[in-house]
């Protein structure tokens, strides 16, 4: 049996004696007798590390790791420099608590401050928090930031990732808010419909760019429509794309949120991921979660602390607008190391290669009879029609170690390419499709 205790029989005797009891169970005297379990839990017996390692390897081995992946839809496979894993495994950074004791937590605090700065750089925004759970909960928290007594309605475009819409709906239901979807037209948000839908009760509109279907939205035009009615724009963006795309700030968004997973986090069957949130100065005090600020110590040395805590649950209790406490600090650290390692130019290269490779993939698929569904410009994802049963296509690809695009319907597939997809991979997949289906 595995045990992480550091207590031998002699220790136990000494400790019991000092405590003044004869058995550890005497310390449970406040627990009603009839509640104490009278038999062991129905769990397996404890195991030695070698056995646990074997079981975990077996479980991992039952999953299928695809050599080639053309699927994104909210979770993206990118190259992760070795240094990211190395830094995130540093024992002290891994096992530290939230940095409440600033004097012994300057390292963690500084790393968060640097992360906040890089998120501000990517989004163009003034202020970033230290992270929330994932992109979807970040969007839900952003909606809560915008709502007040007068404006309780949140509009969300149909082109936003359905996972995100579902989570926004759930949060909104809990707090008696209203969520209304705005229809799409030709793969992007229908701005005419948006204009009709925004009213005096609308607190905010959430748009995704590049959207779930891969298309680039006209955020600038949407922002004008939304602001005209006094509502806020929440831009849900892809952090890799932000290395080259117009920033939410430049487009007029009030809050930028998104899924930080592409920044050096493995796919990991969906988690842990990283919700990033950044906003304009005016909304700073409504931003939920931890925020690190710079200050000085008594000797005038630069110092970092958790700040603006008057917003948070441990101070405001029921008056806090969010209950978030633990966030995704180590994931934010991964993101920071990733961004710094890739660097200014590396991030741009990744983004540009995503664009180029996705366009190459699209062109090749077109040649194989998979016509593009929407004519809009796209980043690294796009929807094609599928001349055959899409599930059958996926099976053929899976038989060749390829995870194909996400099947949206029997004859529609959402494809994705990143810098990881070589030309050779794309060519091989398309010839497979031609052979098998042609």
């Amino acid at each position, binding site marked *: 049996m595995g045990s992480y205790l550091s207590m031998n029989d002699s220790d136990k005797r000494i400790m019991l004696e000092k405590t003044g009891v004869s058995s550890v169970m005497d310390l449970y005297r406040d627990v009603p007798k009839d509640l104490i379990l009278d038999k062991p839990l129905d769990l397996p017996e404890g195991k030695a590390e070698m056995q646990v390692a074997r079981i975990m390897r077996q479980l991992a081995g039952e999953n299928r790791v695809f050599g080639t992946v053309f699927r994104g839809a909210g979770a993206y496979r990118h190259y992760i420099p070795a240094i990211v894993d190395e830094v995130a495994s540093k024992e002290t950074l891994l096992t530290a608590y939230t940095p409440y004791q600033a004097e*012994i937590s300057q390292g963690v605090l500084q790393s968060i401050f640097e992360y906040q700065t890089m998120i501000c750089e990517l989004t163009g925004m003034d202020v970033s928090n230290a992270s929330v759970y994932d992109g979807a909960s970040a969007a839900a928290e952003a909606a809560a930031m915008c709502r007040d007594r007068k404006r309780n309605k949140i509009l969300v475009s149909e082109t936003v990732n359905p996972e995100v819409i579902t989570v926004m709906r759930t949060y909104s239901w809990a707090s008696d808010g209203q969520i209304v979807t705005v229809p799409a037209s030709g793969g992007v948000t229908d701005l005419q419909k948006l204009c009709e839908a925004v009213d005096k009760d609308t607190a905010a509109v959430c748009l995704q760019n590049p959207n779930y279907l891969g298309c680039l939205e006209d955020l600038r035009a949407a922002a004008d429509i939304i602001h005209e009615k006094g509502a806020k724009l929440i831009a849900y963006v892809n952090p890799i794309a932000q290395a080259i795309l117009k920033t939410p700030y430049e487009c007029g968004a009030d809050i930028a949120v998104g899924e930080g997973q592409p920044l050096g986090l493995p796919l990991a069957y969906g988690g842990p991921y990283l919700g990033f949130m950044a906003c304009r100065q005016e909304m700073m005090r409504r931003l939920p979660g931890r925020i690190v600020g710079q200050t000085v110590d008594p000797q005038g040395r630069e110092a970092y602390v958790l700040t603006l805590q008057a917003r948070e649950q441990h101070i405001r209790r029921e008056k806090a607008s969010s209950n978030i406490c633990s966030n995704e600090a180590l994931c934010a650290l991964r993101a920071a190391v990733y961004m710094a390692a890739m660097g200014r130019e590396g991030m741009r290269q990744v983004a540009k290669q995503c664009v180029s490779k996705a366009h190459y993939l699209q062109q090749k698929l077109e040649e194989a009879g998979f016509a593009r569904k929407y004519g809009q410009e796209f980043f690294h994802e796009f929807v094609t029609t599928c001349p055959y049963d899409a599930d059958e296509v996926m099976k053929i690809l899976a038989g060749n170690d390829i995870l194909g695009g996400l099947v949206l319907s029997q004859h529609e597939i959402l494809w994705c390419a990143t810098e990881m997809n070589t030309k050779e991979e794309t060519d091989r997949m398309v010839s497979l499709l031609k052979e098998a289906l042609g």
Partner: protein
Amino acid sequence: MKLLFEKSKPGTGNQYIPACDTPEYALDASFLREEEAALPEISENDLSRHYSALEKRSYGVNDGFYPLGSCTMKYNPKINEAAAALEGFTDIHPLQPADTVSGCRKVLDMTKQYLCTITGMDAMTLAPAAGAHGEFTGMMLIRKYHEMRGDMKRRKVIVPDSSHGTNPATGTMNGMKVVSIPSTPEGYVDLEKLRQAVDDETAGLMLTNPNTLGLFDRNICEITKIVHEAGGLCYYDGANMNPIMGIVRPGDMGFDCIHLNLHKTFSTPHGGGGPGAGAVGCKQFLAEYLPWDLEETENSCGKVRSYHGSFLVIVKALAYILSLGKEGIPASAAASVLNANYFKALLSEKYTMANPGFCMHEFVMTLEKEHKEHGFSALDIAKGLLDNGIHPPTMYFPLIVHEALMAEPTETESRQTLEEAAKIFLDLYDEAMKDPESMQHRPQSTVIGRPDEVLAARKPVLRWKKEEKDEG
């Protein structure tokens, strides 16, 4: 220490990806950002040293004693990390076909089953990403339950004044009115006050047991009965589950719904503030309201995050449960209680305890008298501990104890560590009594002294900016 941005040098950097092997496609300039993101440009060697330096300016469980109350800073086993690093877990897309993820599904199912057994619940979701997220989820189940019965007016949630701040904040996030009830002088739920507080608008009660004073509420069955008789449900905040796992189950105490902090009780690392995982369990009658995962279910409350939860954190927790097993789980719980009581007995020599007698996994000291009569505070003691290589206990919590220090040693500390730490606590007390003024200048040996928090909040500097640096 210099920031990454101050170490950045134009033209440096690393080549992690090869040149593009497909024709270049240029997006129309109207889509492109006007100004490049000012990300760092730094060699890998300098980057590596930067983070080594940051690590040295931090403090983890591996560095020393970490008796942070209510946080359960136990040892984080290495095998858990190794398991979570397996490619068969890390390289799986969340939207892969079902027949390619049977290992992941087994991890989730096994963990759910074991956690149900440990808590006495019938069903479990692993979707929530942290404890507070679990509270949010759990209270949604309770709200949904009342609404599905057409009992729309149940919108009041009762929390004791000793509760974690997340409890009342969770109530608000669920559109509920929060009713705070005072505790008895000993720190227990005041049964009379509870009886007065419940009515036909009560949705439920949120309770931590053992409570934030480290006491197991001996009236627990009466408490849950009072709430149930008024038509409300009982929510168990599992932050303090560590001392009772395998010994007594929330499900047997009358709780309908619970959350667990896998990053506390089940040994997954805190990562400097996350990622955690907050499993939520419930009795069968609430199961249909749990968040859905693979397929939307009719009465589900929805989804609280994308995909399937903090999967790799769940892998680590499963490795821990498998290691400890049926004998190790209660043994760990019991050891956490013995360690806490031993540490409490050692410190009682000088420190005043908020509650005399035995505790569960943690206990609270009060420096109220010292603060009034001798001029040093709980904060001063905490900061003095920093000079001695010890992470201080939780300060100023629970709110019902003045000048509180809440210590939770956990089961993975040795007797020797506790004795060495106790000596430091006791010496520090003497020092503070002799020279309280000097305590205000603690810590002295850390890389910074007490930071100016007022300045930080009044003139927030929340990101680095080039311009400001140049002017300064």
